[in-house]
């Protein structure tokens, strides 16, 4: 049954029953419910049908609206960003597949900073508070968010986590997103910069396989370079693939284990922090 007028047509947009072409006014306005009647379509086709008396006719109308599906998240993200900018806190959203080395990079960053910058960490995982405990041991203030079945953090979760924290001004907030190269890409958390981490054990084709994630990165960190001697990972090829997605993207090749190029990472951090003003 047609959902619009209750007549026998099975689909509201079926070829014999063009409601959209019939508004406003023409299609059914001119007859009483229950009576058998005839329509002549613009192309000359004649339709005969009737409507049950219980379903009187009202013409359908079209509402033009413009509503972004993620508007709620984006508005909350903007509020988060403003709140953190006003306390001069640099916010980074760290994203990668599980096990690429996000937590290890955070730990190494904390050791290198040696308290020069107050660091707060929001840890996102589906379960456990293991990562929050790890970074607390390394000297950061940390909150764990457990997303349960959800595959990404969103701006409202960050807002709630911020309420549990006391953020001193002039610090650094690192958000470790749920390990996933797909879903977190769509959700602005209120960060200033997005850092995507890919380890050398994942292969050079990651940017081509997950272009949406790499397209939105402000910085790509290739991690675990201490393992390069054991692999046939080609850094040049990885960079080429990343630049196919984003021709001007910045790339760093680091090892949190050996400390290789961690200075470049810290320099990037400091530059971002300075350019907050």
């Amino acid at each position, binding site marked *: 049954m047609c959902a619009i007028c209750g007549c026998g047509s099975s689909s509201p947009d079926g070829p014999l029953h063009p*409601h959209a072409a019939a508004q406003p006014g023409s299609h059914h306005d001119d007859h009483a419910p229950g009576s058998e009647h005839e329509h002549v379509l613009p192309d000359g086709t004649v339709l005969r049908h009737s409507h049950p008396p219980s379903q009187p006719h009202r013409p359908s109308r079209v509402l033009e609206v413009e509503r972004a*599906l993620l508007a709620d998240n984006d508005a909350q993200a903007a509020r988060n960003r403003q709140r953190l900018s006003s306390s001069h806190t640099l916010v980074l959203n760290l994203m990668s597949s599980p096990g690429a080395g996000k937590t290890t990079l955070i730990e190494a960053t904390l050791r290198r900073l040696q308290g020069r910058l107050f660091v707060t960490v929001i840890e996102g995982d589906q379960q456990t508070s293991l990562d929050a405990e790890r970074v607390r041991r390394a000297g950061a203030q940390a909150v764990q968010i457990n997303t349960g079945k959800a595959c990404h953090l969103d701006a409202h979760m960050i807002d709630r986590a911020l309420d549990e924290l006391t953020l001193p001004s002039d610090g650094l907030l690192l958000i470790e997103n749920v390990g996933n190269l797909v879903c977190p890409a769509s959700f602005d958390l209120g960060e200033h910069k997005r850092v995507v981490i890919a380890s050398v054990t994942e292969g050079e084709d990651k940017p081509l396989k997950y272009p949406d994630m790499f397209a939105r990165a402000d910085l790509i960190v290739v991690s675990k370079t201490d393992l390069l001697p054991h692999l046939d990972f080609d850094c040049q090829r990885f960079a080429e693939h990343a630049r196919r997605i984003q021709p001007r993207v910045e790339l760093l090749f680091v090892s949190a284990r050996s400390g290789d190029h961690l200075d470049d990472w810290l320099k990037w951090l400091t530059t971002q922090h300075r350019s907050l003003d």
Partner: protein
Amino acid sequence: MHELSLAVRLVALVEEEASRAACTTVSTVTIRLGVLSCVDPASLKLAFLAARKDTIAAAAELVIESASAHAICLSCQKPSDVSQRTSACPFCGAFALVVSGGDELRLVRLEVV
């Protein structure tokens, strides 16, 4: 993927708009989906079937309009439309496209009674 939560969000927006317009039935829901948005149209349609249950949109059809993405080639400077993030420039073949747009995800139109 998060198509189900998007579909639930979409139906909530539809209900808001429908109640504001004081209508009784929603027959068509039209959204605009950027070709580069991280949403799979087929999964979203399936998720919509589940999310519309017992709402004013229970019998509504979901129409997905696709919105294109634009690119400028850093190599030859020519503009083009792209449907994939991994595309080469259609004019010079360089993998040097700076892409803009194509990621929108909007409810744009309702047909209601």
